[in-house]
């Protein structure tokens, strides 16, 4: 399978929401919003899956990082600079391992958004989105990427708040 085939398979699926609303402007906004939402949900599901797979290893690394950090603080409190730097060195190694897991999580969370951008590029790279300005006759032309990233960030903020709210509620329920 090549990239052409992959794009071809997904094209009809992605383009559909762009025609839900008749005016071209609105259709573009609705389509981009739905695409951003889809990519965020797919990315988030991958992230949850990866979290589940990584949990044991992640806990182990986090404990090690915490332990090294605690010891380095104890060393610096004792004004023992040699021990402090040595602990830092080991903490850095532990942190590097923990970071590699974080790298995987971010990749799992973002790949769908990058793919969505790739698809938008093929469809809208030659079509700027004009925003009229009150002080000028000439509109400002936004690229498809700006509109997508704007929606993606907005949805992400709302989504994260909702997630935090869900977590809070379930914690409260568990306590009562």
């Amino acid at each position: 399978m090549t990239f052409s085939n992959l794009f071809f398979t997904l094209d009809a699926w992605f383009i559909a929401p762009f025609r839900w609303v008749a005016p071209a402007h609105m259709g573009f906004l609705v389509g981009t919003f739905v695409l951003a939402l889809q990519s965020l949900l797919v990315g988030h599901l991958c992230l949850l899956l990866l979290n589940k797979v990584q949990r044991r290893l992640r806990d182990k690394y986090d404990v090690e990082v915490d332990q090294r950090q605690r010891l380095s603080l104890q060393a610096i409190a004792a004004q023992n600079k040699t021990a402090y730097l040595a602990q830092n060195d080991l903490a850095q190694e532990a942190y590097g391992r923990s970071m590699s897991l974080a790298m995987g999580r971010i990749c799992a969370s973002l790949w769908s958004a990058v793919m969505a951008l790739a698809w938008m590029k093929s469809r809208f790279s030659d079509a700027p989105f004009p925003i009229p300005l009150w002080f000028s006759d000439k509109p400002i032309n936004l690229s498809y990427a700006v509109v997508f990233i704007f929606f993606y960030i907005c949805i992400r903020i709302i989504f994260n708040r909702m997630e935090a709210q869900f977590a809070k509620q379930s914690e409260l329920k568990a306590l009562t």
Partner: protein
Amino acid sequence: MHKPRKFITFSVIGLALMALSLTFVWAEDTKVTPTTDPVAVEAPAQPADPAAVASDAAVPATEAPAPTVDASAPAADASAQAVVPPTVEAAAKPQFAAKGNKLERAIAGAPQGTGKGQIDPGKPAGFLGIPGGPNVNVVLALLWAVWVGWIFSTVGAFGGVMAGVGHMSVFGFGSYAGSFKQTAPDLGKTITDSIKASNQFLVGLSAAISSFNYLKMKRLVLPLALSLGAGSLLGAWGAAALSAGKLDFKSYQGYFGLFVLALGCWLLYETTPAGQSKKKTAKEAAKAFEDNAKKMKNGEHVDSANAGLHINKFSMTTCEFTFFGVPFRFNPAIPFLGGIVISAVAAFLGVGGGFLLVPFLTSVTQLPMYLAAGTSALAVLVSMITSIATLIMKGTPIDWMLIGLELVGVAIGSVIGPMTSQYFSDVTLKRIFIVLAFYVGVGYLLAGFFGVKIPGV
């Protein structure tokens, strides 16, 4: 953090509902399109043969650039375009390329034909939508990205190098760019810039994660980060702006080879008795303190008034700060100059500068490793963003699809890496990568500067 089961259910249901609603619209689309434009419907059945539909597919694309309301959403105004594969549109671009973007102009300037260094419009669109360009197999790209992710999670810096090797050698973009050296140098240089930007993307993402995490841990020395960041910004912008569109692939390959060779030497030093003893001493010191801390009944208590990082003085020539009460000082001009040089080199080669910045900071500013790593991560991030943004603003095309797929692979690789690394010792892993670094480094150096090719590179 523990994820509530309810939230997972909510996400799955949300996605399923969206999928269901889209399925209906999708079904409607495939029903409607045949009556509106049969050419567009036939096109998906032959995605590998864009020539047949090129003339029809090119029409909407040529009309699109006009900044009018109608042009803003080409997909929304014509259902006839619904199932035309995007790559078909891309393949058609050379025919109207003279007025298009940088890549289109470069393609238009290339001679047409079937020989080496020529563009054959009849061939399927490949890398960056260029007809006849390397068409990377998705499975191969994914497997290579898994390998890159595995290296990222076991050896660190070498992951970025391997990503570069994938782009240049495994996927064949390098030899393709090199084939235009005589016939269409502009096209070759544009492809080279694209390879460079793709290499930087993965490294930049890794730096972004580190910066964010270090920032949360309050391990950033802000004045130092600003000084280093300003230097990095200047260096990265200068190198990217000066080299964009001017560097042919052979020269880039040669310089990249030199960098890989230097990295190999650095890895080799770490496995030598001198490099190992340094690490051993640090481990012994850490162990001794750990044992001592266990013996202490009450332990040492951290004075909460001194906790964290405190900047005491910051001027053009001096920055003084304390970290948990221990004083540190440095001259801000030194990291600024260091940032310029290191970031310029990193941006020129399309690699991260983290592995150079950390030793630079620890040796010049005497910063503890924790702070040096955190601060350098921010500088690498600034450098990467500047460099990629400069390349994009100069019209360098980026294959986002390939990068998206690489992110999937790196995610998988980063899971496999820590699980398998327990079966290899640190030194064994490093020795494997030293051999690889020397082979790739010498290979690229010979191919780039002397035109001598060794197998597999």
